[in-house]
Structure formats: structure tokens, C-alpha cells
């Protein structure tokens, strides 16, 4: 427990240090407007990282999130552009529902057919991405085809804070509740810790996996709508390769690919960390050709810091004699 906290503190500190370093080089980066922008910008990644974290906790991985996002986003855009009179809520719900269904397909294959998650989501990743093209006929949906309220929604401010941030905040709270305080979430940790043992204690593993991937899908659907509305354009290639960014965020946040551990704080910090890098690189005026290499280096550094920490935590055998004395 303590160790976990330490690791997250470490990550939080490195984020602050990073922000300060960038701020030293280009002071605009630490202006209030810029930081609030950074927050807004990190939301989609954060939200996806939250549900991805739940998936990774079960020893799975959802590679299909980005394709799912593109498909639901495209469907939302088509829906909104073809039926401009439709209330926005309907569009949002439709996108989420589509995402949910796509996620449940993954969940069914993984939970009920007991197929390996990486294989299933690798397959659905291609299928969903292909479907975006098929359903849209390969055409773009551009800003002038989308209703005004559709485009405006993500960045509209409520109490001075954008909708995106509000939604992300609600998602973080919900994920925290699920992970810490719901039976569903606790079962996921158990499944991830020892999948073969889960059935011995009566955890309905198939059902849990079904809904975990469903949740990941629904979140991808919601983010699909937000993404399309935010950037005011939908086409086949949106968020191409974003699944790896999401997984990288989780990994940086200390969520173990081996399952069973990981916290909401970790996922959020991991996403923030990547968002800071993504926002800082354009501002610090390093050569664009260096960006990818730097990102790689920073990810490796973060992972190494995590690993070093894990080593310190180590396996320590509890002083059994003390306990025995206590018992006697």
C-alpha cells in the first residue's frame, strides 16, 4: 500500500518537474490558459486509460479501443449530420451504445469463449477499423455538415470548466468507485491476480470479463463522440494507433501488464504524463524530427523508474516469529 503510494507520488513529482522544466524553456507553457488547455487535452486519453486499466487489471488488454472510437465517432457524426434535428443527448447515447456493443463483442469472445484477449482485440481492431470505411463509404464528415451544438459541446464551459473536463472528472470518480468500492471492480482484481482461482471462489468470470470489455467499449464510444466533436471532423483514420498511447499511459501509471494491480490514480497520472509530453513538444521547439525519439526515451525512463521502485518493494518475508509471539 505504502509502496504503491510512493510510486504514484514519484510519478506525480516527475510530472511537476517536467512541467517546470518546460516552463523554464518556454514560459507560455505554464500560463493558466495553457495549463487548462493541457487539462482539456488530456481528458480523452485519461478516460480511455481508466477503462483500459480495468481491462489490464484482469490480465487482458483491449487493442481495439482506437478502432472502436473511430467507428462510434463516425457513426455519431453521420447520425448528427444526417439528422441535425436529433437532440445531442441521443447522439451521445447512440455513440456510447455502439461502443458498448462493440466492446461486448470483445467481452463475449474473451469471457465466454475463453479466447486470449490480445488475439481477440487484435482481430476486432482490424474489423472495426475496416467497418468505419465501409459504413462511411470512405468519405469525410466535415465541420459544416455537423450541427453547431454537436461541435460546440466538448469545449463549452460550465462553471468555467469545459464539458470535457467535467466528463473526465465524473469518469475518474466512477472508475475510482468501481475499482475500489464495487464488488464488480474487486472481482476484476481477483481475476487478474489468479484467473484459475477465480472460479474456486465463485467469481462469475465470464460475466465480469464481458462487462469489463463492455465498459471499455462504452468509454471508447463516448470518447468517439467527443473526439469527433472536438476536432470537428470524422474520417476513417482518426485516432489511428491511439491504442498504444492508451496502453503506454497505463504502463507509465504503474499498472502491471501481468494483471492484478493498478490504481485509478496511476492511470490518471500516466495519461497526464503523456499529455504533458504531447503538449510540451510543440511548445519547446525541439526539432520535430526528435519528437518520436524523445517520447520513446521518456517512456523508457518512466518505466525504468517504476521498475526500480518495484525492486525496492521486493519480496520481504514477514517476520513470522513476531506474529507467533503475538499469538501465544
Amino acid at each position, binding site marked *: 500500500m505504502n509502496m504503491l503510494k510512493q510510486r504514484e507520488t514519484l510519478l506525480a513529482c516527475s510530472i511537476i518537474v517536467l512541467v517546470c522544466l518546460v516552463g523554464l524553456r518556454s514560459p507560455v507553457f505554464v500560463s493558466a490558459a495553457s495549463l487548462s488547455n493541457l487539462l482539456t487535452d488530456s481528458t480523452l486519453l485519461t478516460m480511455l486509460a481508466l477503462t483500459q486499466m480495468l481491462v489490464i487489471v484482469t490480465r487482458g488488454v483491449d487493442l481495439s479501443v482506437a478502432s472502436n472510437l473511430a467507428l462510434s465517432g463516425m457513426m455519431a457524426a453521420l447520425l448528427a449530420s444526417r439528422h441535425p434535428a436529433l437532440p445531442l443527448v441521443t447522439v451521445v447515447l447512440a455513440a456510447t451504445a455502439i461502443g458498448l456493443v462493440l466492446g461486448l463483442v470483445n467481452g463475449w469472445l474473451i469471457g465466454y469463449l475463453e479466447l486470449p484477449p490480445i488475439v481477440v482485440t487484435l482481430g476486432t481492431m482490424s*474489423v472495426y477499423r475496416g467497418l468505419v470505411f465501409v459504413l462511411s463509404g470512405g468519405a469525410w464528415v466535415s465541420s459544416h455538415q455537423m450541427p453547431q451544438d454537436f461541435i460546440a459541446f466538448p469545449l463549452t464551459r460550465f462553471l468555467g470548466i469545459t464539458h470535457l473536463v467535467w466528463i473526465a472528472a465524473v469518469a475518474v470518480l466512477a472508475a475510482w468507485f468501481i475499482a475500489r468500492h464495487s464488488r464488480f471492480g474487486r472481482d476484476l482484481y481477483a481475476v487478474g491476480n489468479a484467473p484459475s482461482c477465480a472460479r474456486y471462489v465463485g467469481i462469475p468470470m465470464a460475466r465480469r470479463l464481458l462487462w469489463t470489455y463492455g465498459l471499455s467499449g462504452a468509454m471508447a464510444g463516448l470518447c468517439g463522440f467527443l473526439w469527433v466533436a472536438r476536432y470537428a471532423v470524422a474520417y476513417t483514420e482518426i485516432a489511428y494507433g491511439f491504442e498504444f498511447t492508451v496502453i503506454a499511459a497505463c504502463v507509465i501509471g504503474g499498472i502491471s501488464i501481468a494483471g492484478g494491480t493498478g490504481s485509478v490514480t496511476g492511470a490518471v497520472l500516466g495519461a497526464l504524463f503523456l499529455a504533458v509530453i504531447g503538449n510540451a513538444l510543440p511548445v519547446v521547439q525541439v526539432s520535430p524530427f526528435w519528437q518520436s525519439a524523445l517520447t520513446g526515451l521518456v517512456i523508457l525512463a518512466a518505466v525504468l523508474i517504476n521498475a526500480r521502485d518495484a525492486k525496492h518493494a521486493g519480496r520481504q518475508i514477514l517476520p513470522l516469529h513476531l506474529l507467533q509471539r503475538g499469538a501465544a
Partner: protein
Amino acid sequence: MNSSTANMTSTHSSRYTILDRPGFRPYALLGKWETLLALLFVAAFLVNGILVPNFLDPYNLADGTFNFSEKALIALPMALLIICREIDISVSGILALCSVALGLANTHGVPPALLLPVALAAGTACGLLNGVLVTRFALPSIVVTIGTVSLFRGLASVVLGDKAFTGYPQLMADWGQGYFFDVIPREFVVLLAFAALFAVVLHATRWGRRIYAIGNNPVAARFAGIEVDRYRLVLFMLTGAMAGLAAYLLTGRIGSTRPNIAMGWELEVITMVILGGVSIAGGAGTIGGVLLAVLTLGTVTYGLSLANVPGIYMTIVIGLLLLVTIAVPRLLRGRKVAK
């Protein structure tokens, strides 16, 4: 050996008889993944042969192998890695960096004959980095290679910027897109040769046996005196080297290097391996299966592209193929009883 055989003479007869092998069960043979793949391959081949004009032309078939040979070359060591419970997402990044190394060497006047060693060395070095990070720091390989893929590709783009390397020697073009006897593509021959080599190593030597043992239970493997980390390190380096070889062939084939060369290949390579029946949980899989998967995928996609089905439909087909091939056996067998 001698003394243990001596022991054996004092055989004490057990209460149980243990057969050497299971009785012959044709049913078990049918249930094998390779059989399934072979059937799929034959079916795809027949359907294409009947429905797609030009498919059965031997020259076309030969040309069709160019589309997958380099990827399949990387799939071979990747199969070993996955059997060993590791994975390398960074192969396409390594390939790009090796291609850049080739370009640099070529522009600095390294003789054509020495270019292949340059590519192999660069690949091995990248693999070494992955391997050291994984073994020395006990990090999960998927995590490490998600980081290194962007590092390697990033370095390629640092060197190249918005330029490209071109003007590769004829020797490379000959290997990249030349033929033996004007019909058999050299790349394909290289692939078959390496597939045979890998199959022998994995299935007929003690190295292979140990790789399976590590994938099956790394802790027990360490307890059985296998230097698990050394095997892992070598496999990462091997994967790097094979990516270097693929870089040599690909660069020869397309005659130019840009940082985005082979973008996204890692997923195609992993798809080949998984479709080939290599268990992502480690410890199971065969080179034969991987080769069959490569050929099946090659046949299907080549047939589709001859029918001018757009690439994006092909991704759907490949995705479905992957899902169907793993789901159907499970559905047929019914739910497995877990231990």
C-alpha cells in the same frame, strides 16, 4: 549416461504400465491446429484458383510471395519469442533503423558486400537493447518495446529528417526483388531456408526444448538449470538480427529509405504468429504452423487484391480470419474444462 543406464538394469516393476506414446487417434490429428490451417490454406487456394483469373499463373504466384516474405522472416524469431512468453513490438522500428544504417553505410561508401553485415549488426544492437532492458531490469517486454519502437523510429527520423536515402547498389536489388532461375523469388527462398533452420532449432534441438520449457514455466526452467535470461536476451537479439535481414531485403526491394518504412508491420507479424497457433501465453506453437499461417494469409490477401478488393476490406477479412480460426475450434470442442 553410462552409470544411469547401469541403474536401469535393476528395474523394479511398477504397478502401472506406462505406454511410450498415446495410442493412435485420428481424431487428435484432426484437432491439431496445423491440420486446420492446412485445410484453410488448401481451401483458400482452391477458391482463389477457381474464382480469380490470373491466380494460378506460376509467375503471379511467385510474385505474390514478395508481399509477405520480409514480414514472415520477422515472424519466425517472433514465434520463438512468443513461445518464450515474450513479445517484441519494436520490430518495425528496428527495421526502419536498420534501413537507415544501410543508407548511411551506403552513402559513406561501404562496399555493397558489407551492407548485409551492417544491417544485421544494427538489428542485433537494437535487439540487445530490448533484451538488456527486459532481462536486467525485469521489465515486461511489451512495455519495453512499446517504448523502444518510438525510440528506434524516432532515431531514424532524426537521422533522415525529411530526406530519403536512395541509390542502393544493384546487389541489394537483386536480393530484394531478384529471382533464381527467373521464376523463384530469392526472398522466398531465403524465407524457406530460414523457416527450415528455425524449425530444426525449435523442434529438434535442446535449445528449442528449453525455449518451450521457459515459456511453459520460467521459474521451473530456472530451477532446472536453464539460463532463462540468457535465452531471452539471445532471442531478442535474434529478432533484431532478423529484422535487420528484413530491412536489407525490403530496402533492396524498394530501393529507398524513409523513416516511415514498414510502418505498422509489428501487428501484421504478430497476427501471422498468432494465426500460426503460437500461444500468446507461451509454451506452445510450431514453426510449421507459422509458415502455414503466412501462406494462408498470403493466399487470401493476394487473391483479394487480384480481385481488386480494397485494402481496407482486406483488413476486415484478416481480422475475421483471426477471430474465426481461434473461435471455431473452441466452439466445436465446447467449453474447455479448466484444471
